[in-house]
């Protein structure tokens, strides 16, 4: 098993490297270059821009070699403050700082500074991470539970009224654009019925401090219930929006996996033995249908990321998706590169988890 995991990690390395190249090139090729945003700011002198550019190995109108240098500087292999591939201590720059390597670049945890806010990219992302984790975690759990229940129910009661209803609903929801569903939900439940709040993650007027600050976390731990209820109310509409489309797609998937499993010989044998229907369905059919379902669950986390950006922008929910949207608006290159890289690494990791789970769940697969 360890061997399998190690081999899988080694396979992922070129992909991770390519991801850094793509993240960098996407930003590098953008018109104007990273310094373009400074041109509109009268308070920044050209000298300051030059100093800033040099800090990141950036050159105006870079040729191919200089572009590679910029990339290596961003990556952390190249020392931008003189010294080339060697750090200020004369050792290879890519080594960790405590071994005498450099401190710049993403491999040393330095994602640069956000151009629009001046804060380090990593701390900006860290501030937004809890909100996104809450949203995506809740959505993920509900998604898996609802999709599985609906799919199994539809498969067991095949061609019944309930199967038809689930099928029609999943067709309809699968076709709805996520962001439009969010708009309509805001209109119905937020504006007309006033049942749920439609914006943000907490009620700004009643909360003790802005979300994500230390003061807020202290208040949350001191007296959790009012804050948790507040967050819960704010989550209803975004989570519904986020999972409606995916649940629709996945319940179809579970249904077909379950139908496949129900038509197998061992299910007929179990029935012939006189086992109760419930046992046949859950111990025999469902356990074998789980295999494709489990891997699918881990894989579609990538899909949630895409949905999160749509949901968060529509609901002004202060997560990473909204941060990314703001970054695109402000042309905040380092922020965008940072989020792209971190989100992609997370997805690569989840793919790995899916592969390992697949091998672990299915006893028929031999790994060595």
């Amino acid at each position: 098993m360890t061997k399998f995991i190690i081999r899988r990690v080694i396979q992922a390395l070129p992909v991770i490297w390519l991801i850094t190249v793509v993240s960098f090139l996407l930003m590098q090729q953008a018109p104007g270059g990273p310094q373009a945003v400074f041109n509109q700011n009268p308070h920044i002198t050209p000298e300051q821009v030059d100093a800033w550019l040099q800090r990141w190995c950036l050159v105006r109108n870079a040729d191919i070699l200089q572009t590679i240098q910029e990339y290596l500087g961003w990556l952390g292999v190249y020392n931008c403050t003189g010294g080339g591939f060697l750090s200020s201590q004369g050792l290879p720059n890519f080594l960790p700082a405590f071994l005498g390597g450099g401190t710049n670049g993403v491999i040393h945890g330095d994602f640069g500074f956000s151009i629009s806010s001046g804060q380090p990219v990593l701390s900006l992302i860290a501030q937004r991470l809890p909100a996104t984790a809450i949203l995506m975690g809740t959505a993920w759990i509900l998604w898996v539970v609802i999709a599985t229940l609906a799919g199994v129910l539809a498969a067991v009661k095949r061609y019944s009224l309930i199967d038809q209803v689930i099928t029609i609903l999943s067709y309809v929801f699968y076709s709805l654009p996520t962001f439009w569903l969010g708009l309509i939900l805001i209109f119905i439940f937020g504006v007309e019925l006033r049942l749920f709040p439609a914006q943000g993650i907490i009620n700004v007027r009643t909360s003790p401090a802005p979300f994500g600050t230390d003061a807020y976390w202290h208040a949350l731990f001191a007296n959790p219930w009012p804050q948790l209820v507040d967050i819960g109310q704010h989550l209803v509409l975004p989570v519904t929006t986020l999972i409606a489309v995916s649940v629709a797609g996945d319940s179809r998937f579970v249904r077909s996996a379950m139908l496949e499993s129900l038509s197998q010989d061992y299910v007929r044998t179990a029935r012939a033995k006189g086992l109760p229907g419930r046992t046949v369905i859950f111990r025999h059919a469902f356990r074998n249908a789980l295999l494709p379902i489990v891997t699918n669950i881990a894989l579609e986390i990538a899909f949630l990321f895409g949905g999160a950006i749509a949901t968060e922008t529509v609901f002004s929910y202060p997560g990473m998706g909204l941060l990314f949207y703001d970054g695109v608006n402000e042309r905040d290159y380092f922020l965008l590169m940072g989020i792209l890289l971190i989100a992609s690494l997370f997805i690569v990791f989840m793919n790995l988890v899916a592969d390992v789970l697949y091998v672990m769940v299915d006893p028929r697969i031999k790994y060595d």
Partner: protein
Amino acid sequence: MALPDMQSPSALQLGGPGDGAGTEDVEVALESLSQWQLAWRRFKLHRLAAVGLCIFGFMVLMAIFGPILDPYDPIFIPNAHVPGGDPPSLAHLFGTDDVGRDVFAMVVNGARISVTIGVFSMLIAGIVGVLVGAVAGYVGGLVDNVLMRIVDVFFAIPFLFVILVASRFFGQGQLIPLILIFGLLSWPLISRLVRAMFLSLREADFVEAARAVGVSDFRITFRHILPSALGPVIVAMTLIMASNIVLEAFVSFLGFGLTEDQTSWGNALSNAQTVLSQGNWWWAFFPGMAIALTVLAINFIGDGLRDALDPRSRL
């Protein structure tokens, strides 16, 4: 080159006129239908697919003729208008928006751009995906490895993030760059499918036979293997078209897509967020319904195609 055609079952041929020599005439008399004719027959029997085809056909007709027949100009802003827009009425079927533009005209004209983006980005994705997948699957080895790692990267980077960045920086306000962006970012799914089919079909008997009589690699790829792999590819292409129509709407909704004077369904939605709080639901409802209906229709068609093109399903 008649021999390989006889080797591969006539079922796998595209069955156009002038396709195949005299041998096929005998077969036609016996079997009477090619695989594609059978697929079409199965497709017609799929009720949902027929509904989908009707809706989608209607959308295409609307995209072509709608703007000619419709009395209103979608970007015409009248001098006098009701603040907040008129609710739906006989004069304005879907109401008007805050500056007095007719929402019905926006929906009708929006079909043009949304359907164009969907169809052409699908074609680009299909062509690139098939080429990459075919090369990777047929050549194999290092080429396959490199191409598939690139595909892995596409699957790892959150699609929507890249779409947003690319639309904002490279495509903003222009139709053709947007089509290229959507098309060139959505092919990896197809190339994975095609590669998998090629890997399994590469060793199939009819390919071996074709190779044995000296058919060129190019011809084997496109004449012998590809037709067998086409079913899943076509289904995947319908999915891509549906998702790209939604994506264009989202990108335009965020303001990174087309400009105000180019009406698409997403653009019609772009100012809906701020005004929904005033209770003017018709701004957001009708363009969104147009998107949802189109996507639903395409999904129905995709489902029908999946059943029809599956050679295991029989009439």
